[in-house]
C-alpha cells in the first residue's frame, strides 16, 4: 500500500470510530429524556454534530481510499473498524470484553494484518 492509501485507511478508522463513539455518547446521555425532547436535547449538544462531521469526512476519505486499492482488499482492510470500536467501547463505555469477544477481535486483527502485509 502506498503512503496516501495508508494515510486514508488510518483516517477512515479514526473517523469511523470517532463517529460511532460520538453517536453513542449522544444517544446514551441519560439526562436527555424521551421523544421529541430527547432529540432537542441531543441536537443542542455537540456530540451528535461531532458524529455527523466524522461521518461526512469518512464518506470522502472512504471513496478516495477505495479508488486507490483493489476493492476486495480495501473492504477486508476496512474490517479493522470492528476491532477499533470494540476496544474503544471497552475503555470509554466499560463494555465487557469476554474471552470469546477477545478471540474474535484477535482473529479479525490477524486477518487484516495478513491482508495488509500482502498488499
Amino acid at each position, binding site marked *: 500500500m502506498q503512503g496516501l492509501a495508508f494515510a486514508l485507511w488510518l483516517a477512515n478508522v479514526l473517523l469511523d470510530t470517532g463517529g460511532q463513539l460520538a453517536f453513542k455518547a449522544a444517544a446514551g446521555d441519560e439526562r436527555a429524556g424521551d421523544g421529541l425532547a430527547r432529540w432537542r436535547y441531543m441536537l443542542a449538544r455537540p456530540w451528535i454534530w461531532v458524529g455527523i462531521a466524522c461521518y461526512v469526512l469518512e464518506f470522502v476519505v472512504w471513496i478516495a481510499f477505495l479508488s486507490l486499492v483493489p476493492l*476486495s482488499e480495501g473492504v477486508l482492510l476496512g474490517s479493522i473498524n470492528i476491532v477499533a470500536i470494540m476496544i474503544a467501547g471497552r475503555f470509554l463505555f466499560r463494555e465487557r470484553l469476554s474471552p470469546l469477544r477477545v478471540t474474535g477481535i484477535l482473529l*479479525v486483527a490477524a486477518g487484516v494484518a*495478513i491482508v495488509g502485509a500482502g498488499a
Partner: protein
Amino acid sequence: MKRFYAIGFALLLAFDTLNLVCFKLAGTHALPVEMNLAWALRVFSYPWIYGAVVGYIGAFVTWMSLLKHAPIGPAFAASHMEVVSVMVLSYWVFNEPVTPTQIVGAIAIVAGIACLAVAEGDEGEHDVVPA
C-alpha cells in the same frame, strides 16, 4: 418467519455490496485523488455515487427492520458478510486477482466476525462491567 430473516439478510447483503461496488466505481471515475473541489465535482458528476447512497439508505432501513425481530448476534455477523460477497464480485466484475494471502486473511476475518456474533448473542444482556 425463517423466510423473513433469509430475505432480510440477503437484502442487507445486497445493499451493502451495492454500496461498496458503487463507491469503488465513483472513486475510480474521479481519479486522481486530490483533496480539492475539482475532485469532489468529479465524484458527484457520475451516477455511481448516487448508487452508493441508495445502498446506504437501503441497508439502513433493512437493518432497522431486521433488528426489530432478529437476534443481534446473527444480524451483526450478516451485516459484515459483504467482505465475502465483495471479494467474489471484485474477481468477477473488476478482474481483481484473488491472492492466497487475501483468502487466508478473509477466513480469519470471517472467523473473527463469527466469534463476535456468538458473543453478541450470548452476552448482550449483561454488557456493561460494573464500575
